[in-house]
Structures are given as structure tokens and as C-alpha cells.
């Protein structure tokens, strides 16, 4: 009953905060996306484009984005509980997801729905992977979630990193049959990634561009320059998570300072170091840190479609931070309620 009340309260807060989305018009690339959805054929973004054809008006599109936002909140709550967070930790995760200013782009900007759909697919796969993944229901959940993520946006490929990570994290949570070793999903995912890269035209095509014209246009951008720029964006969004003053829809990544870029690189290296440091004592911290690295990592090297990291694309990494916040809150509470 108490959980229902908290859930309804958060639902009311979210609906109230986003009330202006009902009457909002298309902005920026919304119209272009709608045109693409109605004219493009093929399997890429097939799920995203199907949702756009179902919601041709701004009101319907914004309503669907809000619904997706709430669904992701629910899936996050389920996953948080399954990972062992208490009710307090779970509600902190959900609260941050539903009402953090950084998440506005995924909700109020209709074009960002593709990222929401990817996250729905990834979370479904992760919930399945966190249980008895070797059983038929688990395998169906992982396959279905992965296909949903990949059919929504190419960035859904992160599911091939996160599912093995989750299986590894949960390897001691339940007894698996001898044939279902924790490394098996990692092997399958690696094989699928290699097959996908070969099918797509080789590593160069994947990490750089997907057309001849594109190769010409970005040949002057080295991997290092690209990685530095993206690292600067990572630092900016992380700083915004902790103190959202000045958060803006039109971040100019090209004008972020070299200091910001190096801070981003240093921070990600610190995440990796802390993930190793806490792998035995605080495995959930390790999971959350590696989660963020898996969500961001591909964007540091893949230049297609040459999109700087935006708030919607950072949403996946934000989930890792939210898990850390939920875990930290319950640890803090235990510290203060411990008898002297």
C-alpha cells in the first residue's frame, strides 16, 4: 500500500512537471524524423519508425514519449529490486530517472524516443539476464529485448556488452547448470559483434562512417580528436547530473575546453579503477560503473553518424549513476540508523 502511494505520488509529480508537453509543437528535427519514418523502408530503426507512423501529431508523439519514460521507470524499479536494492534505494533510482532535468530531452523531445526504445529493450534483456537466464523464458527475454533494442536504433548494440556484464555480476546469485557458464553469453555476444562488423563492411566502416561520401567528410577527424570531444561531453553531462545549473538543449561540444576533455578521460579511467577496486567488496558499485562505461564506450570510437553525445544518448549511462545514488542512499541510511 505504501509502495502504491509513493508510486502514485511520483506519477502525479511527473505528469504535473511535463504538463506543458501536451500542447507542445514539433521542435528542431521532429518534422524531419516524421518524414523519414513515413518514407524510409528497411529494417534499421524499424520499431522507432513504426511508433512515429502511429503518432503523427505532436500531442500523440509527446504522450508516447511520456509513456515510454514511465515504462522505463517501472523497468528500472524491477531491475533495482532484483539487484538487491532496498525499497528506499529503488525509489531513489526511480525518482532520479523520472524527474532529473537531464532526462527532459528524452521525454519532451519526440525525436529522442529512439533512445527510450533502446533503453526499454536493454532493460528487458537485463531483467531476463539477471535471473535464470539459461531457462527458455530467460533466453526469450534476452533475445526479445536485444532485438527490440537493435530494431529501435543502431546504438542498441550496447545490449551485447550489458547482458554479459549482468550475467557475470549475477553468477553467484543462483546456481546454474554446468553447461551455462557465466562466460557463455560473453562468447555469444562477441561472436555476434564480430559477425555484425564483418557484415556491415569491416571495422573501418563501423567506427568511422557508413558511406563513401561520409568517409571523405570525416577523414580529417582522427579517432583521438573524436574521443577527446566525446570525453568533454561526458564530463559535462556528469557535472550536470550532480549540479544541473545551466543545463541547455544546445550544448556546444566543439567549444568545451581541453581541461573539460581531460577531466572526462580521467573520470572514466577512475570509474574503471574503482570498478576493479570494489569488484569483491561492493559488486553493485562495480556493476554500475561498468554499466556507464559500456553505455559510453562505443560512442568514444564510433563516429557514425557523427553525433556528439547529447543528453538523450547519455540517458543509458545516467541509469548507472542512478543505481549508484540508490545504493549510496541506502548505505548512508544504514550508517545513520546503526545502533551505537
Amino acid at each position: 500500500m505504501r509502495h502504491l502511494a509513493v508510486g502514485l505520488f511520483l506519477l502525479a509529480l511527473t505528469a504535473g512537471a511535463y504538463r506543458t508537453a501536451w500542447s507542445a509543437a514539433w521542435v528542431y528535427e521532429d518534422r524531419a524524423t516524421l518524414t523519414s519514418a513515413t518514407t524510409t523502408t528497411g529494417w534499421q530503426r524499424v520499431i522507432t519508425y513504426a511508433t512515429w507512423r502511429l503518432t503523427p501529431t505532436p500531442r500523440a508523439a509527446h504522450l508516447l514519449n511520456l509513456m515510454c519514460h514511465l515504462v522505463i521507470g517501472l523497468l528500472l524499479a524491477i531491475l533495482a529490486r532484483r539487484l538487491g536494492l532496498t525499497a528506499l534505494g529503488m525509489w531513489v533510482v526511480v525518482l532520479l530517472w523520472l524527474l532529473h532535468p537531464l532526462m527532459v530531452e528524452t521525454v519532451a523531445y519526440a525525436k529522442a524516443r529512439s533512445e527510450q526504445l533502446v533503453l526499454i529493450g536493454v532493460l528487458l534483456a537485463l531483467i531476463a539476464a539477471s535471473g535464470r537466464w539459461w531457462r527458455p523464458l530467460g533466453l526469450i527475454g534476452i533475445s526479445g529485448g536485444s532485438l527490440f533494442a537493435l530494431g529501435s536504433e543502431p546504438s542498441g548494440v550496447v545490449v551485447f556488452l550489458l547482458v554479459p556484464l549482468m550475467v557475470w555480476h549475477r553468477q553467484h546469485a543462483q546456481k546454474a547448470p554446468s553447461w551455462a557458464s557465466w562466460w557463455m553469453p560473453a562468447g555469444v555476444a562477441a561472436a555476434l559483434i564480430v559477425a555484425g562488423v564483418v557484415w556491415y563492411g569491416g571495422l573501418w566502416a563501423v567506427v568511422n562512417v557508413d558511406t563513401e561520401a561520409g568517409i571523405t567528410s570525416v577523414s580529417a577527424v582522427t579517432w583521438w580528436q573524436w574521443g577527446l570531444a566525446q570525453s568533454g561531453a561526458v564530463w559535462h553531462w556528469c557535472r550536470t547530473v550532480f549540479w544541473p545549473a545551466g543545463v541547455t538543449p544546445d550544448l556546444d561540444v566543439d567549444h568545451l575546453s581541453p581541461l573539460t576533455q581531460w577531466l572526462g578521460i580521467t573520470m572514466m579511467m577512475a570509474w574503471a579503477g574503482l570498478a576493479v577496486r570494489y569488484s569483491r567488496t561492493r559488486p553493485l558499485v562495480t556493476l554500475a560503473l561498468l554499466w556507464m562505461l559500456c553505455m559510453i564506450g562505443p560512442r568514444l570510437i564510433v563516429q557514425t553518424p557523427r553525433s556528439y553525445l547529447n543528453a538523450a544518448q547519455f540517458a543509458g549511462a545516467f541509469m548507472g549513476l542512478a543505481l549508484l545514488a540508490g545504493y549510496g542512499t541506502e548505505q548512508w541510511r544504514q550508517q545513520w540508523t546503526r545502533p551505537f
Partner: protein
Amino acid sequence: MDSTLLAEARLFWPLVVAGAVASGGFIGLLVALCVTEVACELQQMIHDYTSVHAWTHRHVRKGA
């Protein structure tokens, strides 16, 4: 003045004062400040994404 800024001003100080008075201390003031900051930024971002005027204004100012 921008209506959002007005709303922000209306929200800001009452929350800060209420938080400080209710807690009677520094931590309450800090919490009130943080909650208010996040609420104001949330409101500003939603305004930026749902108002064609705000969107155009931002991009004209940026020169994009």
C-alpha cells in the same frame, strides 16, 4: 521578464526560507537549495523543449 524566470523566482525563495525555518539549520538550507535548483532547472528544460519561441530564441542567439 521571461515568465519562466518569474515562476522560478516565485518558487526559489519561499522554498529556501521554508527549508531553513523548518530544519532550523544549515543542512536544511542546503537541501532546500539543492531541491530548488533541480526543480528550477527541470522547469527551465521542459520550457525549452516545449516552447517553439524558446527554442527559436536559443538558436538565433547561438547563431545556428
